[in-house]
């Protein structure tokens, strides 16, 4: 069994993994870049080591520094979280060579799944349905010929791709050549690999993914689906589980297919198999995500399985604690990704100190947060600062609960996308579940009009404060302990102490 785990990540996911370690009684090691000395994951861990300057490529992406810290601290395993080094075969191999357990699949599986075209080839051979397209290395001329055979519209994707880089949608044949060249350039710049493949566009498709758990003894189960059709620039914004369109029969079929995909990839640990589901109920394999997903909590909320603890158990060589028939789904879960960006200003990233923070609580609410009051959000990393997750008996209850929780959320100092979430959750099409992966981009726009009463209240508040500052009638007395605390907070703390 593991004793000491190094978490090679930062932010909310590092805290999430550290919490799981703590529940399992494992000693924890955090790593941090220069700007993250005061970050939550450093404060939470038992030990913390610096690994370099702020830019990720000089710290959180430095395999050598992280392995060195693992050895120095006596850790026996490394959990990579998501992003950074999580899906790099080279990192998993470096761990293996250093005698450390990598909490994730083998380097061989990571290398195979990392080549999206090769994965398509293997899954096609195994009888897994894939979207019509190509999966061989082809010249631009051959790709054009293939494009005419497949028909427009289609998607150009990078074999080494991710995050929408090197991806283009082509609707008119005269745009094909330019799009191929642009995609190849972008893929070469981003991944150092310009290999492209094509996929027919599936109209009105929903993004449905299956959570997989696989141990080292040949047992593979799925934990059901998540829907991530609400996307902006190929990034999911809201996720839910279950999906409104997946029937028990379809869940069984897709789940079995996901398990088959995992078996073909010799998969171990937790992973996700992504599918597109068309309006006629046909589904197609997209790709495999060989890591813990950002949106894993929605599955945890409806199955009761702690996926991160399962990851650690699997990594230490234990058998899965669940058989497929043990997995039951109950209620509905939603997740909103809280990002530090301004939805009214082209989603420009927002950075700075957070002088005041109140995170929602109450029945059915779970916050996975990487920030605290006084924390400074730097421009160096992802803009995801927290995830707001709710559970309800029904989808309707979960929606109303999410609206309530978003209203309670108070973040000062930076702009967040909370107003964006509030507007999506008020959209009748979203409420009715009439969504697909193009919903945000083609049919939704941020309403600019504000409630005139709200604007007036805001103006009055600012004027009154300015007036009092000018008149010096506002005497500011800090609390004795110097902390800014509301009476609610103080009362809650008091209750927690004396309960």
């Amino acid at each position, binding site marked *: 069994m593991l004793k000491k785990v190094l978490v090679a990540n930062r932010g909310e996911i590092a805290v999430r993994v550290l919490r799981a370690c703590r529940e399992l009684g494992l000693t924890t090691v955090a790593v941090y870049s220069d700007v993250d000395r005061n970050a939550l994951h450093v404060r939470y861990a038992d030990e913390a080591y610096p690994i370099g300057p702020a830019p990720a490529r000089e710290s959180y992406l430095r395999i050598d520094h992280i392995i060195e810290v693992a050895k120095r601290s006596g850790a026996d395993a490394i959990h990579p979280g998501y992003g950074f080094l999580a899906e790099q075969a080279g990192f998993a191999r470096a761990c293996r060579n250093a005698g450390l357990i990598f909490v994730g699949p083998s380097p061989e599986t990571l290398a195979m799944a990392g080549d999206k075209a090769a994965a398509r080839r293997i899954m096609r051979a195994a009888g897994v349905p894939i979207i019509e397209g190509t999966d061989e290395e082809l010249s631009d001329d051959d790709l054009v010929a293939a494009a005419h055979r497949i028909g427009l519209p289609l998607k150009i994707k990078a074999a080494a791709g991710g995050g929408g880089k090197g991806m283009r949608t082509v609707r008119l044949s005269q745009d094909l050549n330019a799009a191929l060249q642009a995609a190849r350039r972008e893929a070469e710049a981003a991944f150092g690999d310009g290999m492209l493949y094509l996929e027919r566009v599936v109209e009105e498709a929903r993004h449905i993914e299956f959570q997989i758990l696989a141990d080292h003894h040949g047992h593979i189960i799925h934990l059901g689906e998540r829907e991530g059709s609400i996307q902006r620039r190929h990034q999911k914004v809201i996720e839910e589980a279950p999906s409104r369109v997946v029937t028990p029969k379809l869940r069984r079929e897709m789940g079995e297919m996901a398990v088959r995909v995992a078996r073909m990839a010799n998969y171990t640990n937790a992973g996700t198999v992504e599918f597109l589901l068309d309006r006629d109920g046909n589904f197609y394999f997209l790709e495999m995500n060989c890591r813990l997903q950002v949106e894993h909590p929605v599955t945890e909320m409806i199955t009761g399985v702690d996926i991160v603890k399962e990851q650690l158990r699997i990594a230490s060589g234990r058998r899965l604690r669940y058989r497929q028939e043990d997995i039951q789904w109950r209620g509905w879960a939603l997740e909103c990704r809280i990002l*530090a*960006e301004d939805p009214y*200003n082209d989603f*420009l*990233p*927002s*950075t*700075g100190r957070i*002088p*005041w923070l109140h995170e929602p609580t109450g029945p059915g609410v779970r916050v996975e947060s990487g920030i605290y009051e006084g924390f400074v959000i730097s*421009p*160096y*990393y*992802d*803009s995801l600062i927290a995830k707001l997750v709710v559970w309800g008996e029904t989808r309707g209850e979960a929606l109303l609960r999410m609206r309530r929780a*978003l*209203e309670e*959320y*108070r*973040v*000062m*100092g930076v*702009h*967040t996308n*909370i*107003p964006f979430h*509030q507007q999506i959750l008020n959209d009748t099409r979203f409420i009715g579940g009439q969504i697909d992966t193009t919903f945000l981009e083609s049919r939704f726009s941020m309403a600019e009009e*504000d409630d005139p009463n*709200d*604007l*007036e*209240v*805001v*103006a*009055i*508040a*600012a*004027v*009154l*404060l*300015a*007036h*009092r*500052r*000018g008149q010096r009638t*506002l005497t*500011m*007395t*800090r*609390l004795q302990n110097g902390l*800014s*605390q*509301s*009476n609610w907070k103080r009362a809650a703390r008091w209750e927690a102490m004396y309960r």
Partner: protein
Amino acid sequence: MKYAAAVKGQTFTIEVTPDEKVCIGDRTHTVDLQSIDAGLLYSLLIDHNSYEVLIEEQEGEYWVLLLGELYTVQVEDDLRRQITHRRRVRAEPLGRVTVKAPMPGLVAAVPVREGQEVSTGDVLVILESMKMENEVRAPCDGRVNRVRVSPSETVEKGQALVVLG
């Protein structure tokens, strides 16, 4: 005392009376602003309607959070309005526009040269922040007078990037 408060392109003229009543147009409201935590949190009653607001003064502006929305409010009293108006005229020569960094970040590219003519919406500087490339565009037509940054330079929020005009 009379104030002008600008929020989201809308300007409210608000008068605060000596007994702290608020007049907007021909309406008079009874208001009560109480500090809850001696910090940023306030309870505001306007004619007995209760609002919880967070207010922070930042760079001469007020940031107000109400029901999940964060607003930026510029408040000026009559006297200060005249002063800032005069100062603004002096600081920027006529027709010259300084384009500033909207956030801290790393300059990824500067696709314009000094002397180049640009139109509204042309990309002046590409700033890398939070893993995203953000394009800083020209707010108006003009000629690039000065380029004040170069690629791989780190910039602070509000730092001058390009001068047009």
